[in-house]
C-alpha cells in the first residue's frame, strides 16, 4: 500500500504531486535500459548507446521536472518533503518498508547526477568508439546511473543500501572493464574489498538502527528513524565510549561513507581505480559514486546532529571533521609527487572529498553539499579533459611525456584551465572559490578546535600547487612525447565546454550575497543582499584564501611553469628534497602498510583455510571415500567368495549329490531287490510298532 505523505513543516498542504509519485521512474528507466542492453550482441553499438543515452535523458527530464516542482513549492514558501512509502515484506508483526523521498537535497542531487552523467555518456561515445566492448560499457554505465539515482531518492536506509551495493558492483565492473589487464582486475578487486570493509560497518549501523527504532525509513509521517520521536529514543540510549546510540550509529554509517568516499584509512582503492576507462573515472570517481558517501552523511545528518546544543557539535560530527581534514591534507601531499595525469586527479578527488566531509562536519548539510555539487562539475570536467589529452596523445598518461599541448589542443586546454582554476578556488569568478570558502568559513567558526581550519588552508595551498605543476607539465613547455598530438573530436570537446560553463556559473548560487543553495536546502527564503558580505571576518577570510591560492599558483609556476624540463629529467622538487619526494611518490606507504598487516593476515588465514580444506576436510572426504571404497571391496569379496562361492559351491554340491544319488541306479537287479526288501522290512516294522502302540 502506498501512502504519499508530507512531512517536515506542518504548513505543508497535500499536493497530488505527480513528480513524487513517478519519482521511481528516474532510477528505474536506466536500470531497465541496462538490462535490455545486456541482452544485445556486441556489434549493436548504436542501439545500446541510444538506449543508454535515451534512458538517462529521460531521467534527466524527470529530474528537472521534479526539481522544478520542488523549487516552485519552495518559492511559495511551502517547504515540502514528499515521501512515498510501501511495505516490501513483513515477518511476524514487523514490517520492512521501502520508499523514496523528494526534497530539496534529493532534487539537487538528482539534477547533478543525471546531468553530469548524461554529458559523460555522450563523451563516452567518442572515447570508447575504438573499443570492441562498447555495448558492455554502456550496459554497465546505465546500470550504474540507475543505481546512483536510486541512492539519491531512497527514503529507506535499506533501499539506499541496496542501491549502494549496486553502485559498488558497477564500480567494480567498470574499473575492471579491461579485465584482461591484470592491473585492472586487481584494482577492481581492491576497490570492491576496501569499500566492503566500510559496508560492513554500514550494515552494522543499519541493523542497530532497525533494532532500536523498529523502522529503516527516514521519514514516515513522524514515525521515521530520522524524525523527532526516534531520535529522542536513540539519544536516551548510551552506547559506551561516551557516545549515545545516535552517535554510534552515525559513526558506523559514516564508516560506510568513508569507504565509498575514500576517506583516510580506506582511500587506497581510488588511485588504483584509475585503471578503468577515463569516462568511468570521470563519472564514478569524481562526480557521483564517491559523492554518494557524502550524500549519505547529508541524508542521515539529523542522526549525526542529534543532541547537539545550539552552536555546538556532536561527537560524530567531530570525528567526521577530523577525518575529512586529515584526508584533505594527506591526499594533497601525495598528489604533489605523482606523474600519472589521472592519479594526480584521483588524489585531488580524495582531497576534495575530505573537504566535503569536513564541510559537513563543520558547517552542516548545505556547506558540504554545495562543494559536492560544484566539485562534481569541475572534477568531471578535469577528468574528461584528461581523457581528451590521453586520447590526443595516443593513450599516453605520463605527464613527463607530454608538454606544449596548449597549441595542439586549444579547446581542451581552455576548458581544462577553467576546471583547474575552479578546483584551486580562484577567487570570485569560479564556483570552487565560493564552495571552498563556505567550508573555510565554517572551519574558522568551529567551536571545538582551530586546527582543521589550518589544515584546510594548507590543503588549499597544496591544491593550487600541484594543479599548477600538472598543467605546466601537460600543456606548457616543449612537446616531450614521441608522435604528434591532436585535438579530440567534437563529441568529446562539447561536453567539456558545457561543464566549463557550469564550473563558472554555479558559483553564483552559493555566494554570501545570495545564499540561494543554503536557503533552498534548509527551506528558507533567499534574497539577494550585498550585506551578506558584511558578516564579521568574512572579507578577511576571502582575502586569506585568495592569498593562499595565488601563493600556490605562484610557487607552482615558479618551480615548474617557467621551465620546460626534459622527459627523463628528474622533477625539480625531487632534486631538492629527494627523501620527501620519494615518500610522497610512494603514496606515504599506506598500501605497503596494509599489505604487511591486513593482507598478510588474510593471506595467513587463507593458507590456514586452505590447509584445513585440503588436509582436514579433504582428509575427511578422502577418508569417507576410502571407507566407501573399502566397503565396496569388502562387498566385492563377499560377493565373490560368499555369494558366488556359496552359490557355486551349492550348485556343485547339488551336482555331486545328484551324482551320488545316481549311483543308486546301478542298473543291477539285485540292488533293486535289496532295496525293495529293506523297504518292506521297514514298513512292516513300522506297522507292528504302530499297532502295538
Amino acid at each position, binding site marked *: 500500500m502506498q501512502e504519499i505523505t508530507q512531512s517536515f513543516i506542518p504548513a505543508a498542504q497535500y499536493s497530488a504531486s505527480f513528480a513524487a509519485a513517478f519519482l521511481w521512474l528516474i532510477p528505474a528507466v536506466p536500470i531497465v535500459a541496462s538490462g535490455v542492453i545486456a541482452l544485445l550482441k556486441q556489434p549493436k553499438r548504436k542501439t545500446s548507446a541510444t538506449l543508454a543515452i535515451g534512458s538517462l535523458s529521460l531521467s534527466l527530464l524527470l529530474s528537472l521536472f521534479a526539481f522544478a516542482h520542488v523549487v516552485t513549492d519552495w518559492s511559495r514558501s511551502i517547504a515540502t518533503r514528499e515521501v512515498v512509502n510501501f511495505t516490501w515484506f513483513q515477518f511476524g508483526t514487523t514490517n520492512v518498508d521501502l520508499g523514496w523521498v523528494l526534497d530539496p537535497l534529493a532534487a539537487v542531487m538528482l539534477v547533478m547526477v543525471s546531468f553530469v552523467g548524461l554529458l559523460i555518456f555522450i563523451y563516452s561515445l567518442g572515447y570508447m568508439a575504438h573499443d570492441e566492448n562498447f555495448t558492455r560499457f554502456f550496459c554497465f554505465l546505465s546500470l550504474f546511473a540507475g543505481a546512483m539515482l536510486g541512492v539519491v531518492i531512497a527514503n529507506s536506509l535499506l533501499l539506499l543500501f541496496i542501491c549502494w551495493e549496486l553502485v559498488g558492483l558497477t564500480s567494480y565492473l567498470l574499473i575492471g572493464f579491461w579485465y584482461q589487464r591484470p592491473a585492472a582486475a586487481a584494482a577492481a578487486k581492491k576497490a570492491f574489498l576496501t569499500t566492503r570493509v566500510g559496508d560492513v560497518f554500514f550494515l552494522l549501523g543499519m541493523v542497530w538502527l532497525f533494532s532500536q527504532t523498529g523502522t529503516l525509513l527516514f521519514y514516515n509521517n513522524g514515525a521515521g528513524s530520522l524524525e523527532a520521536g526516534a531520535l529522542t529514543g536513540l539519544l536516551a540510549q548510551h552506547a559506551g565510549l561516551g557516545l549515545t546510540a545516535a552517535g554510534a550509529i552515525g559513526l558506523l554509517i559514516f564508516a560506510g561513507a568513508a569507504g565509498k568516499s575514500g576517506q583516510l584509512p580506506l582511500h587506497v582503492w581510488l588511485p588504483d581505480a584509475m585503471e578503468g576507462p577515463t569516462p568511468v573515472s570521470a563519472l564514478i570517481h569524481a562526480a557521483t559514486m564517491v559523492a554518494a558517501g557524502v550524500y549519505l552523511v547529508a541524508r542521515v545528518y539529523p542522526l549525526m546532529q542529534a543532541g547537539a546544543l545550539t552552536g555546538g557539535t556532536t561527537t560524530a560530527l567531530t570525528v567526521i571533521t577530523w577525518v575529512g581534514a586529515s584526508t584533505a591534507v594527506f591526499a594533497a601531499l601525495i598528489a604533489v609527487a605523482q606523474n600519472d595525469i589521472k592519479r594526480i586527479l584521483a588524489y585531488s578527488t580524495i582531497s576534495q572529498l575530505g573537504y566535503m566531509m569536513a564541510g559537513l562536519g563543520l558547517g552542516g548539510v548545505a556547506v558540504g553539499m554545495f562543494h559536492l555539487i560544484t566539485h562534481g562539475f569541475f572534477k568531471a570536467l578535469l577528468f574528461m579533459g584528461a581523457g581528451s589529452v590521453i586520447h590526443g596523445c595516443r593513450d599516453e598518461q605520463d605527464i613527463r611525456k607530454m608538454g606544449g599541448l596548449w597549441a595542439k589542443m586549444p579547446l581542451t586546454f581552455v576548458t581544462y584551465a577553467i576546471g583547474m582554476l575552479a578546483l584551486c578556488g580562484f577567487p570570485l569568478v569560479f564556483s570552487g572559490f565560493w564552495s571552498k570558502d563556505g567550508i573555510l568559513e565554517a572551519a574558522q567558526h568551529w567551536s571545538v578546535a582551530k586546527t582543521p581550519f589550518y589544515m584546510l588552508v594548507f590543503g588549499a595551498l597544496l591544491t593550487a600547487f600541484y594543479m599548477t605543476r600538472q598543467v605546466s607539465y601537460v600543456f606548457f613547455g616543449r612537446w616531450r612525447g614521441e608522435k604528434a598530438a591532436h585535438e579530440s573530436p567534437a563529441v568529446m570537446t562539447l561536453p567539456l565546454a558545457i561543464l566549463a560553463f557550469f564550473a563558472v556559473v554555479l558559483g553564483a548560487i552559493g555566494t554570501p550575497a545570495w545564499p540561494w543553495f543554503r536557503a533552498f536546502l534548509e527551506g528558507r527564503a533567499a534574497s539577494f543582499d550585498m550585506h551578506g558580505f558584511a558578516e564579521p571576518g568574512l572579507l578577511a577570510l576571502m582575502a586569506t584564501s585568495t592569498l593562499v591560492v595565488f601563493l600556490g599558483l605562484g610557487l607552482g609556476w615558479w618551480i615548474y611553469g617557467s621551465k620546460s624540463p626534459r622527459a627523463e629529467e628528474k622533477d625539480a622538487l625531487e632534486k631538492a628534497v629527494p627523501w620527501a619526494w620519494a615518500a610522497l611518490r610512494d603514496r606515504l606507504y599506506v598500501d605497503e602498510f596494509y599489505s604487511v598487516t591486513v593482507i598478510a593476515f588474510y593471506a595467513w588465514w587463507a593458507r590456514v583455510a586452505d590447509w584445513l580444506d585440503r588436509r582436514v576436510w579433504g582428509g575427511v572426504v578422502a577418508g569417507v571415500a576410502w571407507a566407501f571404497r573399502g566397503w565396496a571391496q569388502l562387498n566385492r569379496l563377499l560377493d565373490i567368495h560368499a555369494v558366488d562361492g556359496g552359490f557355486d559351491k551349492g550348485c556343485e554340491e547339488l551336482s555331486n549329490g545328484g551324482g551320488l544319488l*545316481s549311483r543308486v*541306479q*546301478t*542298473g*543291477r*537287479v*539285485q540292488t533293486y*531287490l*535289496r532295496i525293495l*526288501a529293506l523297504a518292506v522290512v521297514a514298513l512292516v516294522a513300522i506297522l507292528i510298532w504302530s499297532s502295538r502302540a
Partner: protein
Amino acid sequence: MTPLAGYLLVAALLFAIGLAGALTRRNAILVLIGIELMLNAANLNFIAFWRYSPHPEALTGMMFAIFSIAVAAAEAAVGLGLVISIHRHAHTTDLDAINRMKG
C-alpha cells in the same frame, strides 16, 4: 509253541533263506530259485493257517495256495524265458555284469 507257530517259523526261515539266495547270488537263475523258495514259503504259510483255522471248510487258504502254485509256475516259465533271452544278448547270466540300466 503251538504247531501252527512251528509251521510259521519254518515258513519264515524258508522265506529268509530264499530271500538271502535271491539277494546274494550272482547267477540270475539262482535269483529265480530264491524267488521260488519265497513263494513256497508263502504257500506253506497259507496251508498252515488253513489247517488251524476255525473254518477249514471255507477252503480259503487251500485255494490261495493252489492259485499261488499256478501263478508261480507261470512266473517261473516267463522268468526263465527272460533269463535265456538275456543270456543270448549278453552272453552271461552274471547279474553284476548286466547293468545297462545304470543311471
